[in-house]
Each structure stands twice: as structure tokens, then as C-alpha cells.
């Protein structure tokens, strides 16, 4: 009978106590500190392209790098590709090849000066990257049409914030084109003039309660899409503690490609999720690059001055 020895064991208490002490002694070793190496997920080296075109800018810049496996170490600038052929196309026609740029343009390493993007709303653009070992990667996006702001109204001390402070508000209205998905980016900025005469835009920190509005990358440009108001007039409100009209204040208002919108949203989400560690699930960064990673995004930009 297999249990014979155990059956008789209970007669001998010493065994029980020895067993109990052995349990305790063994259990205390390496209690929380054992680790184990395991294989990483599958990876394939790919071309990575980042380019953001604008309907107002004659400079087209692109960042062309390569991807690494999860466990590879990325050394400084090791990822920049220098031996690729990078070409820009508009509506299927080649505009030209982008030139390799020096380090001072980082994060961009390819660029071209061309009027081919200016005012070409509705045109489809493609960037093609050809590399001797990593193959060919392409990305396409359509330059969105302008959607004008129809009304922008400032009200001083219009609301009380959560801390009991008065805040100014700006109400912004536009008509969303119907039957298509539209994506927007915007920021309220004030001008900052340097002694050299150069004028910069600085961001006004604004707050919003509109559930359709999201924070954008680096919390700079807010994001908005028309899922809930397709084809209708839409008004949203921004608030700021105090708007200082000693400098000019502008609304930078952009219609952006879906790729640009999804990329901005996913970058912020990935960085937020990474900061939260186990409190959030990891998020992948959006890509519209075929046979590669990264994004080709396009924006159509307008500037509206805010009147006091």
C-alpha cells in the first residue's frame, strides 16, 4: 500500500516537525528575486519613414531610419539611413528625389524644396523609400481641403474654474463637410518677437471640456474629429486663465489627414501608457507605411487672429 509509510508516520511527531521546518527553510530562499530570460517577440528589420507635409510650406522633410528588435541596443544615430533613394510623388507623378541632409537637420535626414505641395488641397501624395537591403517602403496620404472657421468669439472672465478662478473663453464655430471623415488640429498661440525681429508662436495653455477634443502630441495641438457631428455646424469652447492681448493671439487651425490624426493620437497614447506602467495597457503607434513603419501625414493650415 503506497501510503503505508505515511500511515505510520503520524505516530512519530518528530517527522512532522522536521518536515515543517524543512518547508520553512526552503521556502525562504530567493523568495521574490528569481528571474528568467525568455525569447523576445518576432521582429523584422524595416524601413521607418516620418514625413509631415503642409499646404503652406515649400520644404518637404523626411526622416528615414530603420527599426530594431526589442532587445537590440540603439546607439546614437545608428538608426539613420543614408543610402536610400527617397522620392516624392503627387497624384502618381514624380515630383523629385529628396536629398540627403546633414546632421543639423535631425530628426530629418532627407529633404527637398518644392512648390509641389503648396495649395494642392485634394491631391494625393506619396513618398517612396528604396533601400538596397531593406526593400521599398511607401506611404500615401491626401492633402485635406480647408475647412474655414465661421465664427470666433472671445469673452472675458466668462466662467469660474475648479479653483474658483475666473477664466476667459473662446468659442469657435465651423461647418464640417458632410459625407466624409474629417480630422482637425488646432492651437491657440500668441506671438513672441525676438530682438532679432524673428517672430515665434508660443502656445497659450487652454482647457476644454468638450468630449470630442483630445490632447495632441506634447499637449501642443489639440485633436478633433467629426465622428459625432459629420456634416453639421459645430461649436467648441476653449478656456484660458487670462488671455493677454498685448501680443497678437491667433488660432492655428488645420485640417489634417487621417494618418496624421491617428499618428498624433497614438503617439500621445503610447507615451502616456508607458508612463503609467502596469496601470495601462501598451499602445502601438499608428503607421501608414507599406512594408515599413512610420507615417506620412499632411496638414492644410489656416491662421485666424483673435479679436479682443
Amino acid at each position, binding site marked *: 500500500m503506497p501510503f503505508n509509510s505515511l500511515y505510520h508516520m503520524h505516530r512519530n511527531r518528530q517527522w512532522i516537525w522536521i518536515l515543517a521546518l524543512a518547508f520553512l527553510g526552503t*521556502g525562504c*530562499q530567493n523568495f521574490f528575486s528569481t528571474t528568467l530570460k525568455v525569447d523576445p517577440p518576432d521582429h523584422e528589420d524595416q524601413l521607418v519613414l516620418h514625413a509631415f507635409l503642409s499646404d503652406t510650406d515649400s520644404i518637404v522633410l523626411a526622416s528615414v531610419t530603420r527599426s530594431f528588435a526589442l532587445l537590440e541596443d540603439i546607439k546614437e544615430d545608428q538608426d539613420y539611413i543614408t543610402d536610400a533613394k527617397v522620392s516624392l510623388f503627387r497624384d502618381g507623378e514624380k515630383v523629385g528625389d529628396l536629398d540627403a541632409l546633414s546632421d543639423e537637420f535631425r*530628426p530629418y535626414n532627407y529633404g527637398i524644396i518644392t512648390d509641389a505641395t503648396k495649395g494642392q488641397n485634394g491631391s494625393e501624395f506619396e513618398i517612396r523609400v528604396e533601400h538596397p537591403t531593406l526593400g521599398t517602403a511607401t506611404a500615401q496620404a491626401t492633402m485635406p481641403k480647408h475647412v474655414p472657421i465661421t465664427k470666433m468669439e472671445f469673452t472675458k472672465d466668462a466662467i469660474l474654474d475648479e479653483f474658483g478662478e475666473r477664466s476667459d473663453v473662446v468659442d469657435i464655430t465651423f461647418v464640417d463637410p458632410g459625407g466624409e471623415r474629417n480630422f482637425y488640429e488646432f492651437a491657440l498661440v500668441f506671438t513672441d518677437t525676438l530682438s532679432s525681429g524673428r517672430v515665434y508662436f508660443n502656445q497659450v495653455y487652454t482647457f476644454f471640456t468638450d468630449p470630442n477634443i483630445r490632447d495632441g502630441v506634447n499637449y501642443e495641438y489639440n485633436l478633433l474629429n467629426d465622428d459625432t457631428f459629420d456634416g453639421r455646424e459645430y461649436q467648441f469652447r476653449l478656456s484660458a486663465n487670462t488671455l493677454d492681448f498685448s501680443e497678437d493671439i491667433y488660432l492655428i487651425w488645420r485640417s489634417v489627414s487621417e494618418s496624421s490624426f491617428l499618428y498624433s493620437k497614438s503617439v500621445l497614447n503610447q507615451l502616456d501608457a508607458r508612463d503609467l506602467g502596469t496601470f495601462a495597457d501598451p499602445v502601438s503607434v499608428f503607421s501608414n507605411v507599406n512594408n515599413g513603419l512610420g507615417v506620412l501625414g499632411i496638414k492644410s493650415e489656416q491662421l485666424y487672429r483673435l479679436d479682443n
Partner: protein
Amino acid sequence: MKQGVYAYSSLLFLFSILFLSPLAAQQKYTISGYIEDSDSGEKLLAVNVFDLKSQAGGITNTYGFYSLTLPKDSVVLSVSYVGYQTEYFRLYLDKDVTLNIRLNAAIELETVEVVADELETIEQRTEMSTVDVPVEQIKKIPALLGEVDVFKALQLLPGVQSGGEGQSGLYVRGGSPDQNLVLLDGVPVYNASHLFGFFSVFNADAIKDVKLTKGGFPARYGGRLSSVIEIGMKEGDMKEWHSSGTVGIIASKFTFEGPIKKDKTSMIVSARRTYIDLLARPLIKAGFRSNGTEGNAGYFFHDFNAKVNHKFSEKDRVYFSVYTGKDKFFFREEDSEDGDVSKADFKLGWGNLTSAMRWNHLWNNKLFSNVTATYSRYQFDTGFSEFDEYRESDGVQKDKVGLEYTSGINDWAGRIDFDYFPNPNHYIRFGANVIQHTFKPGSFDLEIRSEGPSDNYVLDTILGQSNVNAQEFALYVEDDMRIGSQLKVNAGLHVSGFNVSGKFYYSFQPRLGLRYLLPRNVALKASFATMRQYVQLLTNEGVGFPTDLWLPTTKRVKPQDAWQAALGLAKTFDKKYELSIEGYYKKMSTLLAYREGSSLFELNDWQDRVTQGDGDAYGIEVFLQKKKGRFTGWLGYTLAWAWREFDDLNFGKRYPFKYDRRHDVSIVASYKLTERINLSATWVYGTGNAVTLANSRYSGTYPNVDLEYNGRLSPWNDFEAEFYADRNNFRMRAYHRLDVGIEIVKKKRNFTGTWVFGAYNAYNRRNPYFITVDTERTVRNGTVVESERVLKQINLFPFIPSISYRFEY
């Protein structure tokens, strides 16, 4: 509209069966009464009451009541229940009879086997996807640190999975933990875990029975998508006073029960507390002192259960039960020097309070009712404060900063249930319930106060969201009916409604269960049920925290829905072994999840942080159980798939649920070696949990590249991006573990002492808890000469021995 037609046809089906059933031409009489334990007077539920002559029978309800209506004739009644001696009653039925029965516990194991012939077997029951786990069996299962845990026992059943190493959360058939309706004496318990999920809140010494329903839900159940876990508290011994307790490594518990008035009123009180904080207090205080400060820190949890049961008459009984439990972590430090004082205080606490008042009333020998009024509260609060007092040349400056976060849910509920036994072919249940929910979605109380010569400032404000009130309603009717000798049907309809902020949602949920007896006593079972859930837990897919929020359906956030169909076979072999094989498919819609990048640590409206999507789960479960004899236990195997699909997650692509576990095996065995020694072991195996790891890394570029003031591009325009081919794209290593235990019982007159030795993870398997990326560096002469990125698997529990002592007197 479609739902309405669905419901209407279901009602028609139900009532046609009810009214078309053959009306008895013969004169009939009813035998009814309560069945209880002869020693303690505790009512016994699901006892089989069977007339051997007419082959008609039924079972007792939750309160031990049965009713059997039979033709005028002689009757041979057998009354049988697992662990009790079967009783036989011979009588001539020519009038209505009240027969209250007391069953004696089986003394000899062999006796149990012999007398158990008439027990209701698995193939006789209409219900499927349901498991009753006796508390005595739960107590025999080896437990982590010797702390017996009801939920961890349920995790050993097929179709039920644990979240991760040591976690007590339940994932039933691809559902999430908030889709389980956990009822303690009929009252919902919203957060059923202690110590961040390592232990459940249920003290096994205070519990009478545990029942898990994971599919084929009868109409009386509603409000959750995946399972109903009914936990009944003991009622207290009606005959004599006695007490019991357990002294363990991390906690001790004590239970005291007996008759306040013999056979009339009984009570039970049970309490449990951990004491690591008490034992460690001197060390922790000494640690603070060695740093030149005063302070204390610690963690503990406690539970308290109490119940009073009073019998007014044979027709009326009242029960009052209460449970309260709390987890608390605290840290306090005080530093003083030259009259300046600095204090810091941190606290983290969460806990449940549930209470229930029930009134059982027997209207006549066929109609039984139960009225229940309940209150349930779950509250989480955390906060810190800093206080500084220091002297300045012109007075004393006092500065205080305090931030406190609270969230929770309160429920007031009323419920009425009727059990109607018109004849042995029908067992009709109907009832209604209403719940008043108050949700507290999380608010911050911020206090900043400065008083003194250098600064005077007061800010005392509440940030966050206001409470949400909602009302939930439900009506149900079901009939468990026998149609001929082979077919049994449980058909019913559950109707529910939810009123929140002026929006009213409603749902008609048809339920159907069938059992058809095939040749060789093999039961073919099928079920279909639709479920709706109006309250949900907002949590990430990782570790469950007490901070997770219970939130209502709102105008923007739709209720969660599911339907589930199951098909299975069941058979008893050799009167000892029960085998069931079930296949199921569950479709879930409008499930709730955080939007990508969102978490609970945000001040904006929670509705802005969530998104809704779909899920489905399917699989096959095999369950072989031996309930009687020296050797008891079960073997469970699950082959399953579980998926999620959200427009806003994973770029709209379908992905495996984090707890998609292809294979799940559990073996539970208990062997009574002698009257004094009991051996037990469990072995579990599960496919590794799905986690999300990056396939690739690359330099990402911000879309709005900044120029610096010198006109050059800012070097801070790129970031390390990670590419995930899919969410939950990587499997951790398989999980398997063996736990063993030995019980050694020593009986003296009126006293029984039991030593329990256990070993968790007996072969010290390094089971994964989570995976992280780390950099290993080789250092020579103080310089890093080589670094390597590696994946590290963090393991939580190695071989852990335990010892505890149980006593009863």
C-alpha cells in the same frame, strides 16, 4: 423591436407549456416541510426528496423548503443529501402533510456510498454549467500561506480561470471579473478581494455553501454577463453553543455560534484579521528611530461576519446577516528638531459592508416566499497629508497640504421571490427586485492651508465628479418542468430596466435549459441565455486594483449585453463518478475598456476615458468529479478561446483577451488516510497569459517639429517609439503548480484540534507573474564595459510552506 418579438415568443412558449400541461384527474395531496441538519438545525438546500413508488421528486430550495404534490396513494419517500444518511418515510397520502425532516450526518464513509443511491445525479438535473462546491471540500484544498480561499477553490473548476499568480479574481468563460455577480447571502459584494487580489474576502469558517453558475442562467439570475456566485453564510447552530478557530501564518480567525433560544433563534459571529502589522510594529518603529524620526507603517485586513436566524413559527422565519471587511495600509512619520515639526501621513484603504434582512413566509404548502432588504457599500479611499510647523523671526508658520481621493458604490435593494410547487412536474419561481445605486466615480478633496507671518492662504476644494444615482429593476418568471420521463425543461424570462439621469434602458432576456435523457442514462443538455449588465468595473486588463471604479450605464455608455449557448453530455458512473462535457459559445457586446493611453489617474470625466467594443468566447469543458468515499476530488480540463474587438483599440483589429487560455487543467484530490490523517493535493496547468510586448523599436518623430530660438531644429523632436504587431501578441510561459497538504486531526472530548501543513508550489516552479525589459550591465573596475537588453520574467511565489492550527469545541 426585435428584442420585443423575441421576448413575446418566449413568454408564449413558457405559458403554453404551463397551461397545456396535463391536468391531473386524480385527487392529489401535498407533502411539504423543511429539511435540516439534525445536529445544528441548519437548513439544507438542494436535498433530493423522491417518491420511490411514483418516481416523482423534487429538491429543497435555498431555505430548505420542499413541496411535493402526489396522487392519493401510499408513498415511499427517500430524502438524500451528500454527506448525510438517507432517510425513508412510508405513509399513505390521503391529506396534505407537513413533514419536517432532520438528516443525520453520515458517520462511516462507506455508509455514505451505500445510501447515496437516491441522490439527485447530474443527469437528472436540468441545469448545466453549474457547480456546487461544499465548503468542507474547499477547506481541504491546500491554500497559499494556509489561508483557505473560496475563490481560489472556484478557480480550480473548468471554465474558471485565475488572473495571475496568487490572484483571487475569476475569469469565467472569457468574461472579466466584474461580469461575475458575487452574492453573499443575496447581497452583491463589489470588491471581493483583500491584499490587491491575493485573498478573497470570504472567511470559509463563516460560509455554509458556495454555488457557481457560469452559463445556462435560469431567469431568476440577472445583472451580470458571465457568472453568478452565490455564497451562503452559516445560520448558527440551533441546538448548542460551540466555537472554532484557526491560527495561521498571516491571519487568525475565530467563529462562535449557538442558540440564543434553542430551536428558535440562533446566531453566528466570525472574525478574521491579519497580524503582520502587529508583529512587525516594533521593527518598523525601530527603523524610523534609526533614521531620527518617529513613525509607523503597516498593512492589515480584517473581516467580520454575523448572522441571526429566528423562527417565529413553522411559517415565518427571519434572518439578519451582516458582513464588513477592510484593507488598510498606512504610513506615518514625524520629525521634530529645535521646535520645528514636520509630519507626513499616507493611508490607503478599501472595504465592503453588506447587510441583509430576510423574511421567509410559507403561504401554503405549495407557495413559499422570501422578502429581502439589503444594503451594500464598497468604498476606496486614499490620501496623504504633510504638515510643517516652523518658527520664523516674527512668529510660527504652519503649512498643511492634504489630498484625499475617494470612490465607491452604495446599493439599497429590495427583492421578493416566490417558489411555487403546483405538482411534481413543475417548479415555478417568480419575483422582482429593485436596486437604488449610488455611484461615486472618484473625487479629490484638496486642502492647502498656510497660517503664519510669511504666508496666509486657504484652499479647500473638491475636484472630480459628482455622485450618480440610478435605479435598477428586474422581474422574472421561470418553470423547471418535467415533460415525460426523458425531457426536462427550464424556461423563463428575465426583464430588467435601468434608469439613470433621465435615460431608461430595458431588456427582455429569454432563458432556456433542456435535458433529454438518452439511452444508458446519458443526459443531453442544452441551454441558451441572454444577459444584460448595467454596472461595470472600469479597470485595465492587468492587475486589478482597489482603485478600479464601479460605474453605471449612462446616456453615453451603453449597457453590456451577452448571449450564451451551451450543449453538453452528463453521466454518472458507478454511482461515484460524475462526468460532464460541455461546449459553449458566448457573444458579448458593448464591453467597456479604457481608451488607449487612459487610466483612472485622470481628472476628466470617466466617460471620456472609456470605449466600448465586442468580445466572444468559446470552448469545451470536461469535468470528472468524485464526491464520495475516502478518495474525493475532480479533474477539470478546458479548451477555450476568448477574443476582444474594439474600434478604438488595437486599430480596430480583433485581438486575444489577456486571459485567453487555450488549455487549462486542474486536478484536485483528497484522500482520507485514517480518521486522523487527511492528504490533499492540487495540480494546475494553464497556457501562459497573453501580454503585449513590442516587436520593434524605432525613432519616432513628433509631427510638429519645433525650431529653437537659434533657428535650428530642436533635438527633442524624436522619441523612442514601439511597434506592437498586435495587442496581447506574446505568450508568457505556461503556468503549472502543485500544492500539497496534510491534515492531522486530534480529537478529545468536546475538542478537536487539527494541524494543517501545506506547501504551495511544491516543486518550486518559476511561474511568470509579468515580463519586463531590463538592461544587464557588465562592470569592470567600476566601468560599464558591456550592456545587454534582456527580457526578464518576474516570478512571484516559489515553494511556500505553511502551517496552521484549527480547533473546534
